[in-house]
């Protein structure tokens, strides 16, 4: 009897996935436009596996506290803002932004231990950020989100902001940093250059692409949509920490460039869902006077949201995979996840390998060859469908 041992190449590849940790990333998380929280009312935010209350006091400072009153468990986010404090709807206990109970109107004094969890907040570029740290430490001075010049300048549009709840673990959105090929297959882009650099708390994706003629035809028909032709784009996108990506995105048109900044950020609701946000601002120029820039920002925002929907459709149906099987034209998924892991361990446990600089440049020769062919085939099909019978 002959025994045949399966060689490695014959063995079935198993998909592996460990249970998802219920720990949430250390770092600044954006809760969206700051203005939203300045209406004098408390806001309920489900984040980091719990209910939070976000409110702005009379002093203009926006605060984030645990949603539940330490007295009898009332829901503070159903309460009322009184002065600089949030008043519980149950017994009117007043909580300050520092997490301390300031006053109990029907009692002579506040009991000891009347302190609840408060999250450090930061307002910058018209956005509200909250600091999450499972170890309870304050944000270190050198862990920051860089300022976005265009966000406060008159020659840029205002933010167009969107929010979407996604029912999967946040690692899926992070993986996109290194996933060149999905931009072709999911987002109708055509990457021609792709590089990643990870270092300290940043993970960067540099991508150049050309406009796909087949997608343009499907959007605009064979007559073309009129207006300037977009030739391609250059994108330099960096995650600053675990959840906030700033993308300096330049669209190249015939004869001029359009400068925009795209924010792609999220905060975890719990371990299997997150709130995904997009924001975009566009710079005015000779070719793009203010009102045209505003209209362009609106159009781009819709386009980005459509891109999110394409990702969400994949995430809705895919499985979690800890051991992706990669070809040489894929990006550095494992090294990205190694970088991402630094936000899920105590500061003392952060290993050099998680923060050491790593660079990865993809050889796009073969992908470009293959995608050109696919685009040509799609165009030929469109021609055939349009040809008179």
């Amino acid at each position, binding site marked *: 009897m002959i025994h045949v041992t399966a060689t490695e190449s014959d063995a079935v590849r198993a998909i592996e996935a*460990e249970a998802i940790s219920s720990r949430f990333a250390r770092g600044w998380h954006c809760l969206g436009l700051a203005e939203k929280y300045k209406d004098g009312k408390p806001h309920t935010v489900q984040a980091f596996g719990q209910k939070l209350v976000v409110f702005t006091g009379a002093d203009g400072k926006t605060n984030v506290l645990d949603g539940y009153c330490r007295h009898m468990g009332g829901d503070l986010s159903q309460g009322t803002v009184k002065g600089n404090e949030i008043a519980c709807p149950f017994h009117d206990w007043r909580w300050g932004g520092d997490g301390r109970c300031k006053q109990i109107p029907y009692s002579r004094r506040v009991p000891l231990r009347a302190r609840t969890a408060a999250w450090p907040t930061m307002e910058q570029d018209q956005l509200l950020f909250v600091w999450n740290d499972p170890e309870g430490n304050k944000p270190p001075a050198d862990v920051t989100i860089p300022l976005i010049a265009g966000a406060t300048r008159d020659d840029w549009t205002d933010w167009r902001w969107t929010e979407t709840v996604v029912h999967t673990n946040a690692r899926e959105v992070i993986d996109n940093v290194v996933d060149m090929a999905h931009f072709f297959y999911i987002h109708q882009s055509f990457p021609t250059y792709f590089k990643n650099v990870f270092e300290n708390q940043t993970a960067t994706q540099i991508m150049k692409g050309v406009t796909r003629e087949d997608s343009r035809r499907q959007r605009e028909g064979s007559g073309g949509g009129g207006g300037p032709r977009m030739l391609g784009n250059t994108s330099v996108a960096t995650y600053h920490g675990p959840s906030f990506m700033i993308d300096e995105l330049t669209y190249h048109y015939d004869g001029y460039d359009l400068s925009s900044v795209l924010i792609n950020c999220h905060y975890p609701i719990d371990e299997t869902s997150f709130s995904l946000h997009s924001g975009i601002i566009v710079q005015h120029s000779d070719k793009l006077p203010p009102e045209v820039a505003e209209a362009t920002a609106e159009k781009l925002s819709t386009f980005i949201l459509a891109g999110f929907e394409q990702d969400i459709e994949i995430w809705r149906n895919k499985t979690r995979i800890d051991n992706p099987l990669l070809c*040489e034209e894929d990006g550095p*998924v494992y090294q990205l996840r190694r970088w991402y892991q630094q936000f*899920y361990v105590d500061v003392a446990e952060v290993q050099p390998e998680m923060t050491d600089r790593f660079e*990865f440049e*993809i*050889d796009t020769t073969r992908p470009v060859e293959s995608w050109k062919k696919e685009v040509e085939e799609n165009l030929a099909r469109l021609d055939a469908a349009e040809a008179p019978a």
Partner: protein
Amino acid sequence: MTSRQDERLLDGPLLPVACRRCAAEVLVRKSSWEQTSIQWNAGARAACVGIEHPHDTCPALRSAIQEAALTGSIKVIE
């Protein structure tokens, strides 16, 4: 989460390349002439003076890697 290894490294490991402009020694892998992976450590990063913009690859190191690939001291997998 257990830290896992990129299995592509089994077909071709990261190998040391020393820069000639500074004392930096990094680990490099090339799966083709156009593809490059560069793993830095703190010592090499501190030594390097050629990274003008954080997203750029040091030009001197790039040359050293090209030479290493040409002379065969790192293998281009292809």
